């Protein structure tokens, strides 16, 4: 995949990008100074097509009711739409059974759900003093802090894979790092900072050898890659709606039925019960057991529409476009003097987020200049402080791409970086 030509990758990957862009109302925005919006912050949150927004509006205008509780026409319609969304999401990720898909509010809740139920669990999946939990140094904070809380609270030990200079996981010590005392291995599939695509199957194989549970943070993977959880080798997979053209307020945890059945409930309340007495309660079967209270109904419906939208394009095409635009961006950014990419600089096993430094200009200042030109990127630690520290930096600038990103967007970024350098008189 190296040496990609600088000509329109969009054409090469058979994706009608102008048609796609026309679906996203926000892409017509004109920003301060008359600059058109160049949105390169999709790893932070993606934009939403009209189809997703409309699905939620229609729900509120015509079918709104609580789910799973009401014996009336609106309740039937709302419940059917909510459960249809679950089926869509299950199909989208290759889940064997829709009941294995638990709706949460975001990926962070999904990961915390796992860490908390492992703390309270009994039996095989309980994490206790002396046990070990393995993560990596390139995790998003949402896949670090829950495990820090779990291990501190239970007296277990947190260990982690380091990162090579190229921004890949250092798997050289895998057999000692994942050992007989390891109870959980939780890894990010696609890094939101470095862009690295990690060898989840290989790690899962080793983890399963020692009987550890495998958790995958797929927050950046499900939006970008064709996903088949059945063949991934993971036991639990977390992801989030707002990064995959879906709304905010919705995420999902997929888990193997046996595992989800063995875990105790997380949040207690309405809808997750079989029966409640003051003296004690019993739990509903999956997926209700993990969905206490009124769920994000309109949001699940919006996520269902998002999944329809991505499926209509085709996830292979989405992935190919991401790959092509990333290759283009890596090549163009590579030509900028004083610019250092944090993470793999070749578009191999690499997702569409590129973090970089520009010598002599702080990321905040870089992104401020870009913003003055209508180019939206992220500056900071991107919720991955340890990975930044690994590379000896406090923060970086990140450009990230999605189905609506064009080579012209990347060109605008490159022009903007030139201006930033000139403004701050470097290079």
């Amino acid at each position, binding site marked *: 995949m190296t040496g990609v030509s600088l000509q329109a990758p969009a054409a090469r990957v058979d994706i009608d990008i102008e048609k796609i862009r026309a679906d996203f109302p926000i892409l017509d925005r004109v920003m301060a100074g008359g600059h058109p919006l160049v949105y390169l912050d999709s790893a932070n949150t993606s934009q939403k097509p009209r189809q997703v927004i409309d699905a939620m509006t229609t729900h509120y205008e015509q079918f709104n009711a609580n789910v799973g509780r*009401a014996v*009336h026409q609106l309740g039937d319609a709302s*419940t*059917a739409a909510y459960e249809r969304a679950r089926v869509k999401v299950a199909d989208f990720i290759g889940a064997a059974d829709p009941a294995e898909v638990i709706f949460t509010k975001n990926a962070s809740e999904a990961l915390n759900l796992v860490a908390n139920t492992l703390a309270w669990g009994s039996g095989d999946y309980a994490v206790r003093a002396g046990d070990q939990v393995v993560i990596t140094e390139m995790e998003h904070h949402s896949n670090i802090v829950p495990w820090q809380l779990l291990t501190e609270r239970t007296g277990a030990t947190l260990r982690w894979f380091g990162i090579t200079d190229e921004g890949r996981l250092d798997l050289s010590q895998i057999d000692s790092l994942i050992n007989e005392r390891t109870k959980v291995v939780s890894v990010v599939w696609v890094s939101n900072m470095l862009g690295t695509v990690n060898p989840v199957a290989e790690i899962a194989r080793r983890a399963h050898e020692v009987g550890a549970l495998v958790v995958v943070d797929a927050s950046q993977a499900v939006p970008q890659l064709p996903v088949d959880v059945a063949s991934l080798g993971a036991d639990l997979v977390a992801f989030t709606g707002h990064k995959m053209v879906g709304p905010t307020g919705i995420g999902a945890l997929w888990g193997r039925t046996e595992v989800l059945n063995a875990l105790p409930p997380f949040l207690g309340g309405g*809808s997750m019960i*079989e029966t409640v007495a003051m003296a004690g309660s019993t739990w509903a079967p999956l997926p*209700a057991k993990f969905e206490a209270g009124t769920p994000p109904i309109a949001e699940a419906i919006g996520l269902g529409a998002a999944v329809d939208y991505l499926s209509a394009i085709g996830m292979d095409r989405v992935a190919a476009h991401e790959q092509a635009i990333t290759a283009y961006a890596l090549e163009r950014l590579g030509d900028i003097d004083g610019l250092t990419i944090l993470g793999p600089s070749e578009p191999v096993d690499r997702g569409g987020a590129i973090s970089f430094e520009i010598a002599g200009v702080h990321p905040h200042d870089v992104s401020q200049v870009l913003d003055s030109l209508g180019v939206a990127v992220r500056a900071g630690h991107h919720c991955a402080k340890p990975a930044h520290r690994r590379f000896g930096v406090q923060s970086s600038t990140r450009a990230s791409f999605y189905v609506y990103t064009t080579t012209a967007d990347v060109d605008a970024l490159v022009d903007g970086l030139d201006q930033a350098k000139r403004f701050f008189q470097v290079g």
Partner: protein
Amino acid sequence: MDLQSLYQAIILDHYRDPHHAGLREPYEAEVHHVNPTCGDEVTLRVHLVDGTVSDISYDAEGCSISQASTSVLAELLIGKPVDEAMTVHETFVELMQGRGQVEPDEDVLEDGVAFAGVAKFPARVKCALLGWMAWKDATAQAVVDARG
């Protein structure tokens, strides 16, 4: 909403006069099932003799649909070989989960065909299946116990 298609006369008859109601001895397995949505409950016992459903006895609290379907269940399955009863069970479940698209088989389901209309009311399918799921659960337990 066509109330008549839901509340067939047969259903209302079974509701007002449930067959085989009450809990009886002997039995090999007893289960208690709840519809978490509405709280409807059934306690159900099965008595198997030589691979045949000798008795189904129950104490049910619930709506017309759940009461009537448990009554029809008992009526239909008592006296049948367990295998055959399981086939009837499957046929009934298929009918209920068919969203009104499945043609009911009167030879197999007898009075059970009256529930065809229920399949069009998603919120009531669980009511119709409450007793049936309990029976399957209890029978599975009884069979395992007999073998074990």
